[in-house]
């Protein structure tokens, strides 16, 4: 593999007016893209901009409708991922495809041609993982590994094919700041060897930090190609969104009210072998406060949400109280009637039923809290569809939900628009307590800023807001208090202005037990 300079020379991969139509909708519209050998090339864009469609075509998952892909100057067709790998293209997907019950080596062997012995795979994998600073134990079971370690498996799996181009889809969205730093070192090594990296992200800071060039997509078209280091985050965001993104005005100056949500020594055993047990979680949220809980995925966030929402009540009534009343042993309906609202992490199949229309998804969350308005006929419980539709329309208008048609199926909305609807559905009730898990996960920048502002405004109006999030930018934007969850334990809450990313990173990395004293002293 010869290392050619980052600019000039012939590109390793060139894409010429590549188009992908779904029906009459152009997911990618005449895309041009050049990737030079030995460069880290960023692909920027909001959700739905066409980034994943483009890389799926490059990796042979989707067939382009028209246009050309040139590999080292030669036109090629990439009909399957296998063909992509043979050309020298490797890919690390955002959602991992690993079997939790198998070991690292077994998972890697599954993606190779059969007939290679497991010990050889393990040997080669651990050689590569050391070479690139990706420590991995081939004998470890995937279920026991952190998300960052699982990602390393995917990267090693891609490296085993000795690719010249590696595509990484939103790799840092699941990592702690420290883990992300290690990943960047690995990428620098790959680059030094002359390999190219196509790096998909919407995190502008890291793109500026590690990428040599950037291509920006919006609505399936290239809207800009630039050197990210010459740009500001604001100018990059403008290219992505097409207009300036409204910045969230913080909740900072609220007057503190009564404690509206409290958890006292909340402990929950793990429900499944792969779940995290909650250990002695204590938290308090006052009216007017936004408590943000930071943490890397899989450290008990989902379990905490389940216990606070009452989807899985706990035996100890006093472990959770809502507006001063014990609620630990009550179900989600009872907690809603006490004035709480909930937004779970997963939109499809948890917060909403994708196949049902939006109005039905309104009934989903509010069938008892708005019983008087939405239902008629007493025990028969006849749903007043007309009334529900009007309420649904009001929510869509308030939150600026963009949709096709009056009352489309929830699954047909983009992630950002559905999330705006789901958050709006709760805000429409003016809940005294709102608990939100990953409010802007996979949501485009415009929708995210709208949702964050709505959360801040709710707190300003006197409600208690609890936000569980992995996104530190988001946390610093909305939070008045911050606590960190790690391995099912929750740290003390600190005022948001006293914390820095580094301190949160330390708390996240499981340093909680050891350094609790030190961190507390630091304040």
């Amino acid at each position: 593999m010869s290392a050619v300079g980052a600019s000039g020379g012939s590109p390793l991969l060139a894409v010429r007016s590549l188009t992908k139509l779904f029906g009459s909708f152009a997911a990618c519209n005449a895309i041009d893209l050049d990737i030079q050998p030995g460069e880290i090339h960023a692909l920027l864009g909001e959700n739905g901009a066409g980034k994943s469609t483009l890389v799926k075509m490059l990796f042979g998952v989707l067939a382009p409708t028209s246009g050309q892909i040139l590999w080292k100057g030669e036109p090629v067709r990439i009909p399957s991922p296998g063909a992509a790998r043979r050309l020298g293209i490797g890919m690390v997907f955002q959602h991992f495809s690993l079997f939790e019950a198998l070991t690292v080596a077994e998972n890697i062997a599954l993606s190779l041609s059969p007939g290679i012995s497991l010990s050889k795979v393990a040997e080669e994998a651990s050689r590569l993982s050391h070479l690139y600073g990706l420590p991995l134990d081939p004998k470890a079971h995937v279920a026991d590994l952190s998300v960052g370690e699982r990602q390393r498996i995917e990267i090693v799996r891609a490296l085993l094919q000795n690719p010249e181009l590696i595509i990484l889809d939103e790799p840092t969205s699941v990592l702690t700041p420290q883990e992300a730093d290690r990943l960047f070192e690995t990428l620098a090594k790959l680059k030094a060897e002359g390999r190219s990296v196509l790096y998909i992200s919407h995190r502008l800071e890291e793109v500026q930090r590690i990428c040599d060039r950037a291509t920006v997509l919006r609505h399936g078209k290239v809207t800009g190609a630039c050197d990210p280091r010459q740009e500001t985050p604001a100018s990059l965001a403008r290219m992505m969104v097409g207009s300036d993104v409204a910045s969230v005005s913080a909740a900072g100056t609220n007057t503190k009210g009564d404690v509206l949500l409290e958890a006292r020594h909340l402990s929950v055993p793990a429900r499944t072998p792969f779940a995290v047990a909650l250990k002695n979680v204590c938290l308090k949220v006052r009216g007017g406060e936004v408590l943000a809980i930071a943490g890397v995925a899989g450290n008990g966030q989902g379990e905490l949400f389940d216990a606070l929402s009452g989807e899985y009540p706990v035996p100890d009534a006093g472990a959770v109280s809502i507006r001063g009343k014990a609620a630990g042993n009550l179900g989600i309906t009872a907690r809603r009637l006490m004035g709480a609202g909930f937004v779970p992490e997963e939109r499809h199949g948890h917060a909403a039923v994708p196949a049902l229309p939006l109005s039905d998804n309104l009934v989903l969350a509010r069938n008892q809290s708005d019983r008087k308005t939405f239902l008629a006929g007493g025990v028969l419980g006849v749903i007043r569809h007309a009334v529900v539709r009007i309420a649904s329309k009001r929510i869509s208008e308030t939150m600026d939900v963009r949709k096709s048609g009056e009352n489309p199926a929830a699954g047909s909305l983009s992630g950002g628009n559905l999330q705006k609807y789901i958050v709006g559905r709760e805000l429409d009730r003016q809940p005294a307590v709102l608990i939100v898990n990953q409010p802007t996960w996979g949501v485009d920048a415009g929708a995210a800023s709208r949702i964050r502002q709505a959360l801040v405004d709710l707190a300003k109006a006197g409600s208690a807001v609890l936000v569980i999030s992995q996104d530190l930018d988001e946390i610093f934007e909305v939070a008045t208090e911050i606590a960190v969850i790690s391995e099912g334990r929750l740290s003390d809450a600190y005022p948001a202005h006293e914390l820095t990313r580094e301190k949160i990173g330390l708390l996240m990395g499981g340093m909680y037990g050891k350094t609790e004293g030190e961190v507390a002293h630091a304040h």
Partner: protein
Amino acid sequence: MRIELEKRANPSTLYSILSPFLALGLTVIAGGIMFALIGKDPVSALYSFFIEPLLDIWSLHEIAIKAAPLILIGAGLSICYRSNNWNIGAEGQFIMGAIAGAIVPVVFHDWHSPLVLPLMLVFGMIGGALYAAIPAFLKAHMNTNEILTSLMLVYIAQLFLDWLVRGPWRSPDAYNFPVTRDFAPEAILPELIASGRANLGFAFAVLAAVGLWLMMRYTLKGFEITVLGQSERAGRFAGFSSKRMIWFSMLLSGALAGLAGISEVSGTIGKLQPIISPGYGFTAIIVAFLGRLNPLGIIAAGLFLALTYVGGEAVQLTLSVSDKVTRVFQGLLLFFVLSCDTLIQYKIRLVFSRIGQSSEGGAH
């Protein structure tokens, strides 16, 4: 060349209406081929199978008689299936309903009262519901698979009935034939109209189907069933309990199967005997799917499947082919319905490509 299924962005409304008809067409074609292969003229065979029964009053009554249990059971099963509970044991619940309902006319045969028939119907429903309670309990509290338990309980019910009519309930006047005593006239379900044998069971079936349709269409209970069927997690978020739904849907479908059972023995057979059903409980599964799990669609599907029973008897007489022909047609129909339903969610694409022969699946 390969055939690809491409997922549609939205389920196709056109195909969700068209699919049952497409399936019917394919079934008729496949049936015609089958008749040709066994050396019968396909056109006349299909004519006597599907058309002739519709042309005289007697067979129309027969169709109503056979459609009644199919619709009753199918409508109940649709609620189960919509809520993601797979009750396969309606045949057993049908038999247990018939047995429980028959307690009054068989054991208390000396009691004559207008209350006999209503009591029988109520007992029938309770019997079916209690029998469905076994898989419901096992699923809700022991986490067993209801498909297996409900199916296996069918055989127990069949053998229990067999034992009853050969043993303790055998009629003293039946010369050792394995039957119970004939039901007294007040234990017989009255006929619907004067022109033939069709009885009140058909009215029960239509009422139940319409009632369930109203429930699914307009009430929160129907919404709860839909939500829990599509996503248990979303149902839990809505405050619905999937455990309670297991009980509700199993007991409801069991009760309707039990009602179908007692209606059949009371209205059509007039006594218990070792075999009281030509597989209504299983055929009703086809009815439920052919009717798109929609109770109104199930009325139409039930009538059609009843036609396959009557048509099967007809070709058995006129062409002297085996009565298994009915089963073949029902099997073909279910097969084609399920296959055609693929078109609702997917588009079929033929891909012609030179390098496309690569068999690698790709890791993603």
